[in-house]
């Protein structure tokens, strides 16, 4: 039983397209995140949601829109994809308490051509 699952695992698309990545966690956590790992390998936080409420938005272009229909799901929709959006996107979850670790999904490799 996968704790944090995200789909698709690979996404290849053309510039200008709109795409979505889905994430679900079955850990009962109240906080979910999107992280981006770019070509320089940094893992950078993009968004954090707590009980469906946006907590962190790290100056991500507004082409990126997270949607949390319930606390077990956090989807990422990207409009007008650009070459620079190519990266690995990781979903994660945790309990929002000091010392609680993140549980990550296996990542979505996005390639924009």
């Amino acid at each position, binding site marked *: 039983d996968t704790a*944090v699952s995200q789909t698709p695992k690979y996404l290849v698309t053309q510039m200008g397209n709109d795409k979505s990545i889905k994430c679900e966690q079955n850990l009962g956590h109240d*906080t979910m*995140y999107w*992280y981006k790992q770019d070509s*320089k*390998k*940094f*893992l*950078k*936080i993009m968004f*954090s949601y*707590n009980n469906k409420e946006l*907590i*962190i938005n790290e100056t991500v272009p507004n082409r990126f829109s997270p949607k949390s229909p319930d606390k077990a799901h956090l989807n990422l929709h990207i409009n007008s994809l650009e070459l620079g959006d190519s990266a690995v996107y*990781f979903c*994660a979850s*945790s309990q*929002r*308490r*000091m*010392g*609680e*670790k*993140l*549980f*990550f*999904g*296996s*990542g979505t490799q996005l390639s924009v051509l």
Partner: protein
Amino acid sequence: DQQVKQNSPSLSVQEGRISILNCDYTNSMFDYFLWYKKYPAEGPTFLISISSIKDKNEDGRFTVFLNKSAKHLSLHIVPSQPGDSAVYFCAASESRRNDKIIFGKGTRLHILP
């Protein structure tokens, strides 16, 4: 602006010897530190953590040391095993903002037979 720095992109260690991975941070407000391990095509998984009230935390073969005055932490793995070959990410957060964990760039550890 790298608040968490891992200056060694890679490290090779003989099986059975000690692996030492280093991490430096710049933000003096960080008071909680974590190490994550990542295999190819998988998400990072939590390994070990340390609070700033301690200077050492041990879990089996893994020990993390924290030097607050130097803003430096290290992960020791002893003895190193082939399954330890992975990318190791150092991460840090402020307890007041534990939903924002900042990651380093990672160090790729190769355990040589």
